[in-house]
């Protein structure tokens, strides 16, 4: 229910704040005069963006902004800037952006064609796809084994949509949140839980006994994460992309990846050769 309230509130805010600004957005100009780049990010999506045990707002996406995007934007505006962080959630992020409350959404937002109608996306900075979380030793090894099985999903997720449309034999159980779906899996109400692979890896890492669980299957959906910006602001997009591009080329990106997703990272999620090739292909490598 609260999500719906937030949406309504966001719509009201968007009505009020966005009405006068029909002119072409110029985010760099705004950053130049205020000296701050305001990002909308998450507080509870480890390891992308979250508040850690010592109460610091950190994460992989935040590191990307601080270490790759910030220098590039500083170069474009010709002065030092600071990063300001605001909380944004899936229902609020687009309204926050269009109302000028934030300049860049840097969280876990999937770049989709529908969303491209209202915002612009940076280069893809993370690539994941739907997989399954199962108990170790389960006969389910991927999308081809789930026919007739009970599969939990999170309501509103793209993978629930794909399962319903392309695999109607699956007994789909949609839960409003992740903890309930995981509980159903742990107790055997369902045989598998499906979500973005990285979310499942995070769930597994946080579970009381991570070794009891396996993330299985090839990606059966594509979830490229991008940073979102106001539509039609080519100069700002160029600055953000240049920062990321530099990160891919210099290898700085992969160091940060290792820090958060390496064997010793917050959520171990090894970079597969295919994903690495996909990321590098964006910068022509």
């Amino acid at each position, binding site marked *: 229910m609260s999500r719906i309230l937030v949406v309504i509130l966001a*719509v009201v805010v*968007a009505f009020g704040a966005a009405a006068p600004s029909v002119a072409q957005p110029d985010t760099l100009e705004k950053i130049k005069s205020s000296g701050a780049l305001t990002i909308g990010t998450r507080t509870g999506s480890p390891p992308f963006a979250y508040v850690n045990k010592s109460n610091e707002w950190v994460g992989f996406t935040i590191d990307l902004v601080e270490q790759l995007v910030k220098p590039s934007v500083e170069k474009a505006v010709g002065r030092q800037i600071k990063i300001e962080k605001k909380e944004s959630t899936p229902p609020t992020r687009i309204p926050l952006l269009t109302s000028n409350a934030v300049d860049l959404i840097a969280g876990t937002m999937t770049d989709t064609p529908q969303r491209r109608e209202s915002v612009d996306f940076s280069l893809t900075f993370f690539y994941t796809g739907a997989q399954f979380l199962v108990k170790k030793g389960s006969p389910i090894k991927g999308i081809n084994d789930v026919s007739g099985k009970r599969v939990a999903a999170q309501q509103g997720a793209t993978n629930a949509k794909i399962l319903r449309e392309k695999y109607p034999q699956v*007994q789909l*159980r949609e839960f409003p949140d992740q903890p309930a779906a995981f*509980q159903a899996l742990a107790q*055997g*109400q369902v045989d598998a839980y499906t979500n973005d692979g990285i979310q499942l890896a995070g769930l597994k890492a946080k579970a009381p006994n991570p070794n009891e669980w396996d993330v299985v299957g090839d990606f059966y959906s594509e979830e490229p994460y991008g940073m979102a910006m106001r539509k039609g602001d080519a100069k700002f997009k160029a600055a953000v992309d240049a920062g990321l591009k530099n990160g891919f080329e210099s290898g700085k990106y992969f160091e940060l990846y290792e820090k958060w997703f390496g064997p010793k990272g917050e959520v171990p999620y090894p970079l597969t050769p295919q994903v690495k090739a996909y990321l590098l292909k964006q910068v022509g490598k």
Partner: protein
Amino acid sequence: MSYTFNWSVLWSGQSGHWLLQGLLTTLELSALAWLLAAALGILSGALRTVPLAPLRYAAISYVEFFRNVPLLVWMFFWYFGVPPLLPRPLQDWLFNHAAEFWAAMVALGVYHGARMSEVIRSGIQAIPRTQFEASLAMGLTTFQAYRLIILPVALRLIVPPGTNESLNLLKNSSVALTIAVAELTFQTRQIETYTAKAIEALTAGTLIYLVLCLSIATIMARVERHYAIPGLISRGGAA
């Protein structure tokens, strides 16, 4: 960016089909839960007024235990808490046969049974004690007195609060979406995720609940008038 309304999302694509499915699930869930709630409510409401102390205490425990814990918790209890207590083959059978629906039905029925019980008790206590004594003096047993005299009168008295409770039950059935029952509210959210048109989807859901509840209230008002006992419920006929 301003919000552009697009009401056609409600009848284009699968939305209409989903709403109808959600409506049917809501009706099915509420009707079954209502029958359970009515049975439990009449039983425990009657037991709370009988002369036998152990029966009264049993009924009091049921009512106080179930009505004082939030419905959401009961949903989780019946879905996550109860199945592990059953033998494994039965669990598997249940999980393959809409366990979430039955868990939601029992959760709603038992919770509202406890609330219904209080409504029925107040109906019974509104009947002068002399009626009960007169029934016994006629040679009826306590059971017969309840079945033939007390309950038929009490049930006529409690139609207005009973309607209230039934409408609550219908609306509370939406809590079942937390354990993956695809009822009406679930389906309005589904439309929202597919079309990103939250206000339209929510409005459709609201209107359906409103129409449902108004129809039930109208039917119950007729029932109330039809079964009113002249003289006992003096203004019943004029309502």
